[in-house]
């Protein structure tokens, strides 16, 4: 009975409160919004609804810093993401001149849909020089993307890079590759030391018996280890170089999440469903 009396009033109040909350949320959202959102830059999509919806922005926000760790697979993941940008502007790739994972091989970039001649490489011995070059590149606003292969970037340095990315409106990837998978797994459990918006750990994944016939196919274990406003998740992802639209015309490459067996990696399944 008492409930009946209270209910209408409460409802009115509730709708009031909801409206207030809505406006407040939109105000806070506008104040906190990423620069790319404010400037109407579309987020960089993966071409896969599961991956895109796992991120609160519906894709990787541009004009921000992202961190990608992992084995050689991480380099492929980065190259594939770069090709998704589909921008005619050059890509700046800063890397140490003493890199233990070898140098970037032009013909190897083609399967990731990237034109090797679009990339401008900056090689330096000193880490400070690389960070400086990255920051200059980001601030100039000229490249479409700045990739930095630098390990152990400090919190302050990453903050500078993030601010530079916002100022120049350029996306930045911090790529950190290691040779063996074991080190890579250690890295994924480490807590965040940079201010990157998202942190990814990419490693190769042993293929199932059924898929073993193709040694060329790129299949990666992609883990979203940290995401501002998102939930860390992990997927088995495949890169499809040459997609085709309904008319059969070749389009840009896209990622796709590969269905996993429920008995393997079962802890990832519920989250996947939640996200989609």
């Amino acid at each position, binding site marked *: 009975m008492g409930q009946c009396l209270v209910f209408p009033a409460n409802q009115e109040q509730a709708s009031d409160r909801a409206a207030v909350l809505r406006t407040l949320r939109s105000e806070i959202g506008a104040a906190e919004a990423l620069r790319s959102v404010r400037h109407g830059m579309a987020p960089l999509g993966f071409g896969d609804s599961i991956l895109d919806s796992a991120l609160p922005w519906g894709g990787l926000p541009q004009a921000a810093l992202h961190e990608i760790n992992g084995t050689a697979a991480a380099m492929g993941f980065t190259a594939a993401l770069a090709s998704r940008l589909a921008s005619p502007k050059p890509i700046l790739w800063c890397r140490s001149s003493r890199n233990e994972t*070898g140098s970037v091989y032009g013909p*190897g970039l*083609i399967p990731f849909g990237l034109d090797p001649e679009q990339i*401008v490489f900056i090689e330096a011995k000193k880490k400070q020089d690389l960070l400086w070059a990255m920051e*200059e590149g980001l601030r100039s*606003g000229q490249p479409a993307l700045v990739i930095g292969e630098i390990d152990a970037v400090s919190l302050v340095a990453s903050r500078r890079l993030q601010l530079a990315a916002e100022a120049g409106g350029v996306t930045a990837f911090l790529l950190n590759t290691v040779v*063996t998978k074991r080190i890579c797994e250690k890295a994924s459990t480490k807590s965040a030391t940079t201010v990157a918006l998202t942190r990814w750990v990419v490693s190769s*994944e042993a293929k199932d018996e059924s898929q073993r016939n193709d040694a060329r196919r*790129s299949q990666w274990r992609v883990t979203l280890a940290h995401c501002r406003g998102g939930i860390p998740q992990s997927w088995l992802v495949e890169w499809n170089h040459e997609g085709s639209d309904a008319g059969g015309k070749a389009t840009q490459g896209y990622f796709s999440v590969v269905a996993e067996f429920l008995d393997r990696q079962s802890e990832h399944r519920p989250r996947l469903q939640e996200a989609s």
Partner: protein
Amino acid sequence: MPLTDARALEPALQIHEADHAADLAYLVRLAGWCSHYSPWTAPDVTGEVGENGFGIWLDSTGCDHLFGGEEALLSSVVTRMNDFGFRALAAVADTPGAAWAAVHYGLSQGETVLVTKSGKVRDVLRRLPAAALRFSPEVCSGLDRLGLRHAGDLFDLPRGPLVARFGDILIRRVDQALGRKSEPISPQNPISRYRARMSFAEPIGKGEDVAEACRQLLKTLCQQLDQAGQGVRQLEAVCYRVDGSLARIAIGTSRATRNAPHLLRLLSEHFDSIDAGFGIETIVLGALRTDQLVADQLSLSEAPRRVFRRSQAATESMAALVDRVTNRVGHNSVHRLAPKSSYVPERAMQRLPYTEPPANKQSDSLERWFANRPRPLSLFDMPQPIEVVAPIPDDPPVLFRWRRVVHRVVVSGGPERIGPEWWDAGGSGRKEDPLPRDYYQVEDADGDRFWLYRSGLYQTGDASAPTPRWYLHGLFS
């Protein structure tokens, strides 16, 4: 005076060996410093060492008015040389030969500066001794014996007998002194056609002052370049210190430019490295290398946007960015990749210095890069030796060890045989002939994929043949 006599007079006398090499080196430095009077300077080493001293050539054509006339220029040179601790004499004449004669023999006692009147070379030289024409002592004594004591005696003599007796040099020197024959002086430093110069009433030392001077000089220089339709590829700023030494900074650009703010920004990276010493009195900016650069055309529809963008002042071109990185990090630091027609993997790609990417590509990148075969994303410049367990003769490996880690191969693809290029066989300076390679793509139990190759083939029935070796060449992603 012999050394023993000198020692008898002054027992505390210190003796140093004459160091001609160091003298010459210092002369070169002084000649460099003198380039702030005229860009065209060179050390004169033809003069006799010791008695007459060294000399420095200055081609003052078109430069004397900057110092208030020829006499003022010479006085300034002499005063400065005296300040540096040298006794200096200076003379100016129409030809190098006449100037040399004037400075060595034409000055009377107590005079340090001599300006010969233009067009009066003959009159000036006539009264000077024959040695003033830069003859060797043997030639001089020979002339003396003939009674030809003055330079003027030689002017109108019949040439044939003179050449027969003393050789070609005699006539050449006479002609050069009189201006009948040209005598080029090769400048010590490269001469920049476009240069701007600024002297200061008081020596400057602060970084901001240098920056401001460079800013104004760049403005002048860029105006010159604009009129000539040229753009800078290499720029040099030379700072002349009061103590007779120089500081040079040089920058390069990836494409011709005459954008003064951009050039100033490149220069300013190096301002810290300038040691002002006791102060800088002159700065000269010279474009060492220029390329043609036509004026930028603003299209009518684009113009308003450009103006708007300039007001934002946030954008700069990619080339400008590359310039700044190159000037700070190093010359080979910025490069781009280009395909090369070769099947040998490490030669299929070359690194080129950054240029604007080719606007119209003739063919698809797939064809240009020979990318129809599996190629790894990262390639080792030096293939890494690995230990392999593989069935012979040409099966893919079962097991391999790289960097002390054993990888068990689960999936493999290949082989892809890549033969050596025929023109490369048995090349000079190589220990061994290049061997054919069999490439395999293998995947280990962790899912990591590698590009391995076997260098050489297993020879059946030939025990002396070397065992093929295995290498890891790249990592797939």
